[in-house]
């Protein structure tokens, strides 16, 4: 089956910065680097079996969001096994607005994926919905719940936009 996939390097060149941003938003800057790397490895492995070449950026960002959650789960398991407390938020220091990113990482998984894919990744609600296997309306709800939580955490009132 010929689906006309572009050379993978073209995806890397066009999207590696966005994948890195999304990974950092999901997992924090230090772990974000590993998440981005793992997301690219997964994407490269799966690439030849894609059945269409439509919206590859959205496909990459979706893989990145899923990879970040997997990494978080396996780290939680490791921390539990080692009876260590979860990693403190100190690794957020290189990011501006530390409390914001700390708040993002504390969100429930689906809210975090939705808000990060929508605002950091710039995906439309239809694309976020596809990534999370839900409806655009549900995506809208997840994003607005996430924003409400973040505003509460940051002590800012509701805003326009």
């Amino acid at each position, binding site marked *: 089956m010929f689906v006309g996939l572009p*050379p993978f390097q073209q995806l890397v060149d066009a999207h590696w910065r966005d994948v890195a941003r999304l990974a950092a938003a999901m997992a924090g800057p230090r772990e974000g680097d590993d998440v981005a790397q793992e997301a690219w490895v997964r994407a490269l492995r799966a690439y030849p079996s894609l059945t269409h070449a439509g919206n590859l950026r959205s496909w990459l960002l979706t893989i990145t969001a899923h990879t970040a959650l997997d990494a978080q789960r396996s780290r939680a398991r490791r921390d539990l096994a080692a009876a260590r407390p979860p990693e403190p938020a100190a690794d957020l220091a290189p990011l501006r607005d530390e409390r914001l990113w700390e708040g993002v990482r504390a969100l429930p998984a689906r809210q975090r994926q939705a808000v990060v894919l929508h605002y950091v990744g710039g995906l439309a609600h239809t694309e976020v919905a596809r990534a999370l296997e839900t409806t655009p309306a549900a995506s809208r709800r997840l994003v607005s719940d996430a924003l409400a939580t973040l505003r509460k955490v940051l002590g800012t009132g509701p805003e326009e936009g």
Partner: protein
Amino acid sequence: MDVASALRRLDVAARPPRLEGGDVFYVVHDAPIGTLVLAATREGTLVACSYDAEEAVTARLAAHLSPRVLREPQRLDEARRQIDAYVTGRRRAFDVPASPVLATPFARRVLGELARVPYGSTTTYQAIARAIGAPRASRAVGHALGANPLCIVLPCHRVLRTDGSLGGYAGGLAAKRRLLDLEGVA
């Protein structure tokens, strides 16, 4: 703080991924004769040495071999070294494995004839057309050579018109002239 726009603004210091698991590797090489895109398979077989643009060559690699095409210059170090030695007159033949897998079956027959044209000699489009049993196809032979996926390595620059004029060359006629000069062909 506007939460939504803070999320949009996120910027991080990051670096491109280091990837393993590609099927085809390439480099854009500034050779003394011009810019070339060289590509090889995982096994190290050279499949492209082209004057065409990076986008065009990598799209061809993706369509014909595998979409897992990665820019990995070190995989092509030996091929680069040999090309540079060749175009500066320090080498007369190549000993990297090469295969014209990007060529059509007809073009492969045409390119196969180039093996009979040794360093320092030339042939014509028409002679090749006759040799492959298609005496009236010299124009098609010209097209096939023009799409040579392994320029320099498969010496399509040694093919001239019957009247002795240069004909065409993917790398430009100045490059063709230079390669022929190198071989001492008038």
